């Protein structure tokens, strides 16, 4: 059984929960008191992850930190169809890695702006918001041209990959950090497509696509 060191309001924890649900893998959440308890900086947790960051998973003794790394591992290990992380396709892996790095940029900008507004973390808020808008502009353009080419997802092809899941949370939570997505209509359509994936789960601040 996989244990996820988890925090409901974390976009990076959410993307791991989302992939686990999409793959239909059962897991146990160990809920961490991130705010205000700072349990992720506690001595016992720093032994698991010296960076003091969430999420972390423990899969039968394999301990992994870093949301993007965890997505790579889970998709490689448990996606029997091999579409979420197509290991046989070097070009796809290159493209996916590009967007996994981009997702870290979203965490550092849109994610940081949200921590500032909702959990009082001190950051340069103007710089975070401007940085997020610069990334969202690039993402919207990428997705518009994907649609124009008859594709639906970040990396070419007809199947979503972990690149979509890695970018999804902090894009969809941007307004909690004062970053409007009104300028990004292609991002909005892509977000709806992610929400319509079978097995999709919402989180606080990310609504389901249609009435239950």
């Amino acid at each position, binding site marked *: 059984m996989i244990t996820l060191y988890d925090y409901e309001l974390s976009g990076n924890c959410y993307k791991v929960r989302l992939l686990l649900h999409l793959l239909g893998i059962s897991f146990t959440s160990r809920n961490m008191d991130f705010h205000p308890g700072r349990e992720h900086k506690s001595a016992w947790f720093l032994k698991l992850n010296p960076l003091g960051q969430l999420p972390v998973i423990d899969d039968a003794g394999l301990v992994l930190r870093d949301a993007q790394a965890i997505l790579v591992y889970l998709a490689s290990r448990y996606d029997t169809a091999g579409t979420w992380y197509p290991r046989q396709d070097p070009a796809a892996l290159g493209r996916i890695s590009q967007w996994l790095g981009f997702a870290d940029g979203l965490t550092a900008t849109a994610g940081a702006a949200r921590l500032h507004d909702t959990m009082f973390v001190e950051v340069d808020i103007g710089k975070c918001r401007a940085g997020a808008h610069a990334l969202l502009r690039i993402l919207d*353009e990428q997705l*518009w*041209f994907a649609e*124009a*080419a008859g594709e639906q997802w970040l990396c070419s092809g007809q199947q979503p990959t972990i690149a979509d899941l890695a970018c999804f949370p902090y894009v969809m939570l941007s307004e909690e950090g004062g970053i409007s*997505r*009104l*300028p*990004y*209509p*292609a991002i*909005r*359509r892509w977000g*709806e497509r992610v929400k319509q994936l079978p097995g999709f789960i919402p989180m606080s601040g990310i*609504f*389901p*696509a*249609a*009435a239950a």
Partner: protein
Amino acid sequence: MNRWFAVTPSAAVPRGHIAHAQLLGQELALWRSASGQLNAWENRCPHRGVRLTLGSCSGEQLRCQYHAWRFASGSGQCTLIPSHPGQVPASTIHPAVFAVFEDGAFAWVNPTRESDARPPALSPPGTPLRSIFTLAPVATVRQILREGYAGQAVSLLDEFTLDVSNPDAATLRFMLQPVTRAETVIHAHLQGGLAAAERLAVLRHHNWLLGAVRDRAEAAA
């Protein structure tokens, strides 16, 4: 302002999708029902004021995310208040509904809400380019465009409409959407069809050129 503004390429609002737009400071929920009817509503639930763009489309109705009140495509009339399921909602309960018209390429909205006239002859058949959101007022964007587009002259048709007319090429029309006093969307329409083989390259080329217009307008704003 009693006039029609292009607010989105029609293809950007597929069936069942709720797009988020803004015109002259007014936020809009632009949504298309399952049967294909496009609606332009004030982005505010008449119940508690929550944005309708947070809601979801359910066939011919839009469902508010907050208390699941439902509103009918077309009239906007409230059809269901789930906390009072036996009650017929009063006819006064509906979001503000704007006049909306589609010409085959773009959706147009008249912000006065009164006009039932159709907009004048708009875009002829052709290809909408990628619309460009610009952090600059309409006047600044218009000024940058009037300086020329890819070395070609640009003529002003009215305050919000400009044409690139080159005898050797198809007419390119720009339609400026005033989002707020400080923001503009540049919609663009290339007359005539594009061969499949060159379509993406042409779209990318114009996206690059319009991105440069945006950057210059933002630097000047």
